């Protein structure tokens, strides 16, 4: 075991993992976190806590992770390179480990231009690939980036994100190989809608022998409505939402679209389970944590396995 996290144990035992996601509140209200967290209890193996996602100011990921630990839930700390340099990154990593956080997702971060403070100065001292290297060095060598010994190792289960739908498509498996070379243990993918393209990506990844070197969790984001599906299709760069999902949601009355979206998500999970090389799913039910349970249940993934 590298970190001994629940997520690591689930994956190491060969179970099909289920991770979820919790977006911190735009404010200091702990009750919002508790409410969202309870919806995910017993439903997912580990909960990603986003780091000022879409560059919108929210409660810090590390604090929310600590609250989840106090609630008896396992967090996965998302850390971006957008807002912190190598000094802050390493300091936060040490602090996060001291607080009991064991899973870490290394991200470059959404550009601040999209957020609520587009006037901000961004950092990008290191990129996500280099962040993975920093975390690995800390864990495997017990050293900081500058080679200094750490007083106490921070042993994280190292994760990263991959987007099989970003361009150039041919480079995406190479980029995953680089993340593995940098030291990643698991990856979670961008929301998958175009299953044919994901199958092609996974075929290449498996052929390159990458699926044996890291756990790949397939990203699922249920479409809550036709409006959301349209937004995802047209306004999120690097997402691929095929027309047939838009048509399918268009074909049902507005008050039934949410149910249809859940049905689609469940079907997608079932399709994903058939794809060689996939070790689990990452359910990003954006502001829809209360619907996570019915999706995971309908997909036949409950109860979650126990690990020691």
């Amino acid at each position, binding site marked *: 075991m590298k970190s001994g996290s629940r997520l690591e144990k689930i994956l190491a035992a060969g179970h099909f993992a289920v991770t979820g996601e919790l977006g911190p509140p735009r404010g200091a209200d702990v009750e919002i976190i508790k409410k969202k967290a309870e919806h995910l209890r017993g439903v997912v193996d580990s909960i990603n806590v986003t780091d000022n996602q879409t560059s919108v100011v929210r409660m810090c990921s590390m604090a929310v992770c600590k609250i989840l630990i106090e609630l008896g839930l396992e967090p996965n700390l998302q850390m971006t390179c957008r807002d912190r340099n190598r000094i802050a990154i390493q300091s936060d990593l040490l602090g996060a480990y001291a607080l009991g956080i064991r899973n870490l997702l290394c991200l470059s971060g959404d550009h601040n231009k999209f957020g609520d403070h587009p006037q901000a100065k961004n950092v990008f001292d290191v990129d996500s690939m*280099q962040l993975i290297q920093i975390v690995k060095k800390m864990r495997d060598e017990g050293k900081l980036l500058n080679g200094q010994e750490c007083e106490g190792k921070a042993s994280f289960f190292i994760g990263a994100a991959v987007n099989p739908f970003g361009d150039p498509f041919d480079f995406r498996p190479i*980029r995953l190989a680089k993340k593995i070379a940098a030291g990643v243990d698991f990856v979670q993918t961008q929301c998958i809608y175009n299953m044919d393209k994901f199958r092609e990506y996974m075929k290449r990844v498996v052929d390159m022998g990458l699926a044996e070197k890291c756990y790949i969790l397939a990203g699922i984001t249920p479409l809550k409505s036709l409006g959301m599906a349209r937004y995802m299709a047209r306004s999120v760069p690097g997402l691929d939402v095929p027309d047939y999902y838009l048509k399918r949601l268009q074909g049902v009355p507005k008050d039934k679209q949410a149910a249809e979206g859940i049905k689609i998500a469940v079907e997608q999970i079932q399709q994903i389970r058939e794809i060689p090389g996939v070790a689990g799913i990452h359910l990003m039910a954006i502001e829809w944590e209360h619907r996570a349970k019915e999706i995971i249940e309908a997909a036949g993934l409950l109860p979650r396995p126990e690990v020691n």
Partner: protein
Amino acid sequence: MVVAERKPIQEIMAMVAEYNKILLVGCKGCVTVCCAGGTKEVGILASTLRIARKKEGKPLEIIERTLERQCDPEYIEQVSDVIEKDGVEAILSMACSVGPQYMAKRYNIPVYPALNTTFIGGALEHGVWAEFCQACGNCIIHYFGGICPISRCSKSLFNGPCGGSAKGKCEVSSEIDCAWQLIYDRMKALGKLDELAKVFPVKDWSTSRDGGPRKVVREDMKL
């Protein structure tokens, strides 16, 4: 070259509102090439200011000059006569931001920048300029097919495109080419894709502005 663009006229009007006589000084270097602060632009701005101030009933007297460069003390000296003898109250510089700083160092009257210095770049077509360099102080473009990921990728990524690269464009704007699509295409054409498969390690930014204001000293050039 250093690329700059003129500030909005209202902002410049506010800067010189209290003065009756100013020196408007352009530069024959980079800002002439990028059509922001050469002799022609000095003339246009001077006319605009004169007309606007005349309308307000508070005429502004403007002495126009364009220097060979404003990033060299010897040329800055060439306006000393005007400033010391003609009763100029302020200097409005149309050079990149180096110019007004040199002016401010040499002359004891207020200095104002008429331009916004935007970036180190080049022309894409007539009337269009783009950023190509952030002066990191340690050029690495040869690892990336001659394309700088620091200045041309919105996130300055060293190891490939982020998830937002779509159809050759950057997630920040469809006006921006994804630098990593360009790097990928170029390295593929050069038959060097395997080089992009290597993890590029963390960069030493101490040669960049992060190491403090920089200075180049050439002992062999000193007099």
